[in-house]
């Protein structure tokens, strides 16, 4: 077998050296009745060529984003990633290294994590960022738990503009940890009165901007009310590219900023692996979840980097840890930091501008389609339209025409008549005039 270097002669010699007769003697501690004597009921080994054929056949049953006009977003976005990024993250020294527990021989990982933390802190306009979470949704749940630790309260208020699956992650954990969650109803029109929900019991208020429906939310009044009540504002984003163009949560009073970083450096991958970004104020560092990389010096006085403040973490604190997280999203953070180091603030702003311009163009074009109403006022690259028919059927009909038009809200929040006709449409720098023309023309046909 191509992954196993031992020959049969090696195996025999090694067993003799160990002083046992057969390999099964080394498994003698497994209770006899639980031992598998036969091979598992699964296929036998396969050559590289065979595996490639089998998996390629499965891949061929899917429609890749790059093969069609593509407007699907709602938490994951199709962007162009420079070829340099994927080349670099596949370097053996990055790809096949472990968590940097031995800093003397993992300065490569540690230095890029330090650079990553600096980039994320600057993007979000916060004091500090950690070395990544699994993704935006799990990061949001961790942010809520952190707010509970900081405020010693147990009630989270979730905006109706929060991504429905992020909300489900927070609610599921709160339910089993016996914490309170107040979830506002779905809010496609951006009219909810979240301020009225914040009181002296509130630990945190969780608001996404741009929200699930694409609406940019003014966080300042929410921060003011939260702080007045002794609560924290957790600001969430799913499209990190937006921070190149819109005012960051850190400049609006957010206490914790958490979001999905997939858009920069990382592909769609059917939902994962992605990279959660997590930033907060200096005063809360010791309540933060996740790994942190810090600067220090070595025995020769040279600058170097180490994982630090690990007294917050599970391997030291066990049941008193701030989080159970161990493995996080190192390689996706590397992809993120490489792509962003190529972009710089200038490139990020340009990329964000194109995304926004494409959204404006599409919104304008959709205004010419009879029966289509745009619900979103201020937006970045994504907006919600109300169709004259059920959105899921329209999306299927458009898919049959080779266009992936967006996400029907009912895919995530089914069974609500008022949401059934809503479609969330995303735009990025990959969309062309031809893509938009094709969508508008096909939509007219489907709605006719």
């Amino acid at each position, binding site marked *: 077998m191509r992954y196993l270097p031992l020959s049969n002669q090696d195996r025999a010699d090694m067993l003799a050296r*160990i002083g046992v007769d057969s390999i099964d003697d080394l498994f003698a501690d497994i209770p006899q009745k639980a031992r598998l004597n036969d091979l598992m009921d699964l296929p036998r080994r396969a050559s590289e060529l065979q595996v490639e054929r089998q998996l390629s056949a499965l891949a061929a049953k899917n429609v890749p984003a790059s093969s069609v006009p593509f407007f699907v977003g709602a938490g994951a976005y199709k962007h162009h990633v420079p070829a340099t990024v994927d080349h670099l993250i596949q370097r053996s020294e*990055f790809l096949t290294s472990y968590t940097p527990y031995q800093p003397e021989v993992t300065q490569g990982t540690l230095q890029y994590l330090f650079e990553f933390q600096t980039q994320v802190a600057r*993007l979000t306009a916060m004091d500090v960022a950690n070395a990544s979470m699994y993704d935006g949704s799990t990061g949001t749940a961790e942010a809520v*738990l952190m707010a509970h630790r900081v405020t010693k309260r147990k009630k989270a208020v979730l905006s109706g503009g929060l991504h429905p699956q992020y909300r489900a992650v927070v609610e599921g954990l709160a339910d089993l940890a016996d914490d309170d969650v107040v979830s506002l109803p779905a809010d496609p029109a951006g009219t909810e009165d979240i301020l009225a929900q914040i009181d002296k019991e509130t630990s945190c208020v969780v608001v996404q901007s741009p929200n699930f429906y694409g609406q940019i939310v003014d966080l300042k009044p929410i921060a003011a009310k939260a702080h007045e009540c002794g609560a924290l504002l957790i600001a969430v984003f799913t499209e990190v590219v937006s921070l190149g163009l819109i005012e960051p949560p850190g400049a609006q009073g957010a206490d914790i900023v958490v979001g999905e970083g997939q858009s920069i450096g990382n592909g*769609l*991958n059917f939902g994962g692996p992605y990279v959660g970004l997590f930033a907060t104020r200096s005063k809360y560092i010791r309540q933060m979840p996740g790994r942190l990389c810090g600067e220090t010096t070595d025995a020769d006085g040279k600058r170097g980097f180490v994982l630090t403040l690990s007294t917050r973490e599970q391997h030291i604190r066990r049941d008193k840890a701030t989080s159970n997280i161990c493995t996080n999203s190192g390689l996706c953070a590397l992809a993120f930091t490489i792509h962003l180091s190529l972009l710089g603030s200038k490139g990020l702003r340009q990329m964000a501008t194109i995304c926004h311009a494409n959204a404006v163009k599409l919104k304008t074009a959709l205004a010419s389609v009879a029966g289509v109403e745009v619900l979103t006022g201020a937006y970045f690259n994504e907006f919600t339209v109300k169709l004259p028919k059920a959105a899921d059927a329209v999306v299927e009909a458009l898919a049959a025409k080779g266009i992936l038009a967006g996400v029907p809200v009912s895919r995530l929040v089914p069974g609500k008549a008022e949401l059934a006709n809503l479609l969330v449409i995303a735009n990025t720098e990959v969309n062309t005039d031809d893509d938009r023309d094709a969508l508008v023309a096909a939509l007219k046909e489907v709605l006719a």
Partner: protein
Amino acid sequence: MSMNTQGRPTSAGDTSVSYTPKTFTGNRALDMEEPLIFEFGHFDTTGVDFDMPDAFEMELGGHERKAALELPGLAEPEAMRHYVRLSRNNYAIDAGLYPLGSCTMKHNPRLNEKMARLPGFGDIHPLQPLSTVKGAVELIDTLAHWLMTMTGTTAVAMSPKAGAHGEQCGMMAIKAAHKAAGRDPKIVLVPESAHGTNPATAALLGYKVVSIDAKDEDGTVDLEALKRKIAEHEGDIAAIMLTNPNTCGLFEREIIEIADAIHKANAYFYCDGANYNAIVGKARPGDLGVDAMHINLHKTFSTPHGGGGPGSGPVVLSERLAPFAPLPFIRKGEDGPVLVETPEALEAGEQPFGRMTAFHGQMGMYVRALSYMLSHGSDGLRQASEDAVLNANYVRVGLQDLMSLPFGERPCMHEVLFDDTFLKDTGVTTLDFAKAMIDEGYHPMTMYFPLVVHGAMLIEPTESESRASLDLFVATLRDLVMSARNGETDRFSGAPYFSPRRRLDETSAARKPVLKWEAPAPAEAAE
């Protein structure tokens, strides 16, 4: 014009001079110093070319960014050189033996990387119409089938994003199952040898962690002590969280009795699957009485560790816990597998406790893991586990006369645990010993874990090592032990000497944390 016929010298010349030059750059040939991107990059350039649109009216509603955003934009050659130089400061499996116990640093086949990058897997969106991702759902279903067959279980929650997330998922299913039965037990039993994530996970869900004692003679769970704990907290125990093989590298011989005792107490058996690589194809956790076990695809099934993730931690579930598996899950339909994503789509008997993450989990890791499983097949997977155990025992017998086995000369599973008794009176600590391994070109083993022995050194060579590689590793460690015994303390106390950095000051890093780069103050910069 006449040509110079002198030619270049081909002999090395007199190189007997012993001299270590102090270089101008601080570099030492291939070993190069590299500043931070913020220290050499331009803040007003970009390394990505865009076709900018014509001027247009923005619709941001007055939310334009006013806060400063200062990020360097590197030209492509600058970026390439920066990250290539950084990479060379990392140890990696591809470069050498990486014997981190309980981490399973095995070979990461590049076929897996190639497969994960097929556009049909890497370039599909989690929310595009299900009619356009049938192959993706089929792949997840196929991987689930492999995992259930290997473990002898009836369900699997695929979406957890890493081992600790899988633990959380399994424990949430357990809590939901108790709740559904009208029970509210408060205690989770965790052995002393457990990974730190186990008690952290139990505490996260509001459970009280009660530690169970290990037997002195071999560090495994003391069944009688366990039964006493169960009796003491009768009716109040939710689960036991147990790693098997345990973190001492030993299989819990009384595992079935432990499971029985736990089940009799109306509690569940959570197994930490971090060490599953020892027993794939040799025993099925389902047959051992396990109710839930996460499987680290990034350990057992070769998806790369990536410097700390991404991982993937699917959780196999027994029949009793299957109904509580979180959304999304795959249901067998008449026309193939169906992805169930929302509570509204549930059928009778399905009681998911909620959702672990947005979307469907770590698809990129699923493709890699399935690529590995298909390559190995049932025969290769069993052979891999046998080789992993064989290699660990080969290291054990190669070192047991010089290093100290805390539990005697019995066979281990896929990792072998030593304690620091053999370093007594040498003035060398476990940490020193590990750091001296770095100078020899090895990544150290797991140190000071598990906590049940003093100065632990946990070595997991994996099946990826050849006999020649193990022989050199054993010989190196033997040489280090002899050196320690002979009082050559300099070799240890200042180690490592040859790595890109020498020992780093973690105390000062934690006391005054510097967690990001700050521009030097102007006065300082002018100096």
